[in-house]
């Protein structure tokens, strides 16, 4: 679908001029209007119009991914086929309509220590839950800009997930799936990249589509956190906004084209409004438009709350959750209000017959 310019039915002089201006393939000519093309190549306007007609007339444009339009029904069917990624907190999953949706960007913001990284690690394990348990059975790409991806914690969460699923295994299919759902395989399905500044992050995002094409089983991309490298660009806020817009666009494109869920983490910052200080998500108002769904994690007294505060398809609700040694879980209804996480919690989670993979 990329033809060399020399194969177009044009006169020799025109082809020479195109060649010397640097146009080798028809794909290069697609974005040009006739007046710009004539300026760049030195052709006259009529010749430029002729060139563009020749390009667009034959060869169908050179871009294979102009898809036919879809009806809303087809879109609905497509969405229903995609499973969501459970968070192992059934209340939050219920509010989200099953879990973190695939094909959309979800942002998690909160103050330090509230559990954003814990949620990300939990999702990185949950995306690998076998399909017979209601999971997506995919791999995950984890981009770590902060250095908080610690193997000890990932191993804990993975081991707890394996225990949880093995307790739920009822029939042969599920038992067979448990053979391949072990801590080792979970770790081997997490691809980790560490980025130390925003340049490396941009480079990684640029190379990501190729990586995703090579690994079609990846169904989750986690970036923890997007805010950390970009907040150092405090001098040129407009540049930062432009870069972030570009990042947002790239993430949306990847989410749709490669059928992945994108989860990003954001920090909080203080904003003075009407003489009072409020804590709001960082990176500015413009960034707020990029993610489809925004979750806010916050403290209330000694309780941890998760609020969906931006979503086109969910009601704004708040649920309580807790962070246990097993990972991200529902808050126990019978729990006394104290802030310390229980130390050895294995019997508590074993006794829970909750089927979170609904």
């Amino acid at each position: 679908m990329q033809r060399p310019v020399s194969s177009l039915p044009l006169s020799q002089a025109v082809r020479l001029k195109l060649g010397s201006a640097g146009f080798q393939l028809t794909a290069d000519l697609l974005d040009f209007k006739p007046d710009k093309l004539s300026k760049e190549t030195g052709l006259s306007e009529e010749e430029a119009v002729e060139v563009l007609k020749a390009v667009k007339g034959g060869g169908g444009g050179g871009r294979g991914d102009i898809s036919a339009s879809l009806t809303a029904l087809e879109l609905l069917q497509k969405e229903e086929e995609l499973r969501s990624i459970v968070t192992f907190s059934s209340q939050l999953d219920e509010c989200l309509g099953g879990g973190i949706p695939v094909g959309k960007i979800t942002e998690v913001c909160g103050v330090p220590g509230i559990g954003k990284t814990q949620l990300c690690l939990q999702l990185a394990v949950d995306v690998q839950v076998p399909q017979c348990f209601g999971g997506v059975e995919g791999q995950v790409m984890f981009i770590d800009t902060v250095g908080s991806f610690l193997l000890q914690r990932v191993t804990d969460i993975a081991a707890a997930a394996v225990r949880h699923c093995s307790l739920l295994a009822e029939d042969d299919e599920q038992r067979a799936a448990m053979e391949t759902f072990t801590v080792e395989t979970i770790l081997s399905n997490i691809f980790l990249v560490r980025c130390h500044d925003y340049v490396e992050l941009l480079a990684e995002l640029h190379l990501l589509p190729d990586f995703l094409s090579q690994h079609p089983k990846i169904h989750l991309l986690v970036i923890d956190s997007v805010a950390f490298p970009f907040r150092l660009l405090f001098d040129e806020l407009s540049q930062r906004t432009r870069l972030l817009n570009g990042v947002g666009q790239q993430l949306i494109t990847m989410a749709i084209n490669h059928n992945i869920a994108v989860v990003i983490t954001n920090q909080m910052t203080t904003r003075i409004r009407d003489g009072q200080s409020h804590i709001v998500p960082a990176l500015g108002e413009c960034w707020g438009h990029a993610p489809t769904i925004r979750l806010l994690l916050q403290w209330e007294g000694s309780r941890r709350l998760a609020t969906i505060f931006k979503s086109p398809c969910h009601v704004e609700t708040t649920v309580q959750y807790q962070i246990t040694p097993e990972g991200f879980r529902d808050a126990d209804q019978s729990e006394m209000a104290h802030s310390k996480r229980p130390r050895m919690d294995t019997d508590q989670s074993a006794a829970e017959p909750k089927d979170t993979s609904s």
Partner: protein
Amino acid sequence: MFMGFSLAFNTIIPDMFHQKLTHLHLPVDHQLPDAQTSTGLSPYQQQVFADCVERYHPAPPDDVSRSAGYFRCSGAFDVNKHTVRRTEVSGMNCDQLLLHPRVSAALRRDLQRLTGLSNSDVQQLITAAAAVCRRHPPITAQQLQHGVSGAQLRLGCPVLDCLLRGGLPVGGITELAGESGTGKTQVGLQLSLSVQYPAEHGGLGAGALYVCTEDSFPIKRLHQLIGEQVCLRSDVPADLVSSLRFSDHVYIEHTADLDSLLVCLTRRARLLLTRGLVRLIVVDSVAALFRTEFQADDWLERNRQLLTFSSMLHHLSQEFSTPVLCINQVTDVFSQSHNSMGPSLSTVSPALGLAWANQVMVRLMMSRLQGTVVRGDQSSALRRLEVVFAPHLARDGQNAAVWREGLRGVESWTSNRK
């Protein structure tokens, strides 16, 4: 004044591109601070480049400015104001510019014009540049497990190390906050000694850089701790302990203001780390400089400086796999509703606010409890070391006491003061 765009590429870029690009030259500010060479052009230099291309192509085409919005006609760019010098800029510097997704569209046109490369060639160039920028390709977590990672720096007391699940993580900022007199400096000193043990005994086999910003370094206490190391580290063979020359490997810096602190980190810390002489940085304390040097209205400037400082620490920590301990002061919390940063159980919270808290990976707090512990001829006020947040630790605490040999956890006491 001639200006242009010069690149020296490594072998990943094919030769034909190299040829086409070498006739362009980039002007750079003649003062290139050390910290910038590893990360690329400074924002100022990027602006210089943008203005140069603007001047080279004075009227950006409409669709370019609409899609990229990158080049602004911000007035005439006076070349003579800036000293320029033709330098060989490494491939990394310009890749930084080529990677901006918006800018790449605009630059593609200009590069095409300047170099005669076609659109797809430029795409290939950008991809190659991104590949150069990337330090490591993605690895799986399983490979991480088998690789060299996850080393930890033990504190020296098995009870406290159990609380920390091994010790301080390598590669990230650990903060220790508390009121005065709770023993934070003790922890800093103890870590400066424990880092010198070899890896099998929980150390990192190198020395420590101790940066004092407020009081002078407690050298007598350090000597006392050195003398009692055999008593504290009963898990290490005594001849190994006595063979280590502890005081030779603790590098002490006194910095009285912010500028000298930043200089110390950029020059001396980097030098010591590169030579492998230190693998621990202790800053005692972080709050002192930032609280005293700024007025209440200057919080914007203070945050800026704080971000610069912490990002420097973070980069050093990641690059050299070095734990960084920052000792912080506390501030009073008056109204519980405003302290939405924590579960609001205590009356004090670490100083420097949300901006600093966002940079910290592990936050620990030391507090003094009522009561004393007696052991032999020594007695110590009871303290509590708590984990406020950490990616791999539960929110938990452990009582401890300060003895002649250092800080030790007190096991049998389960004080139910939650």
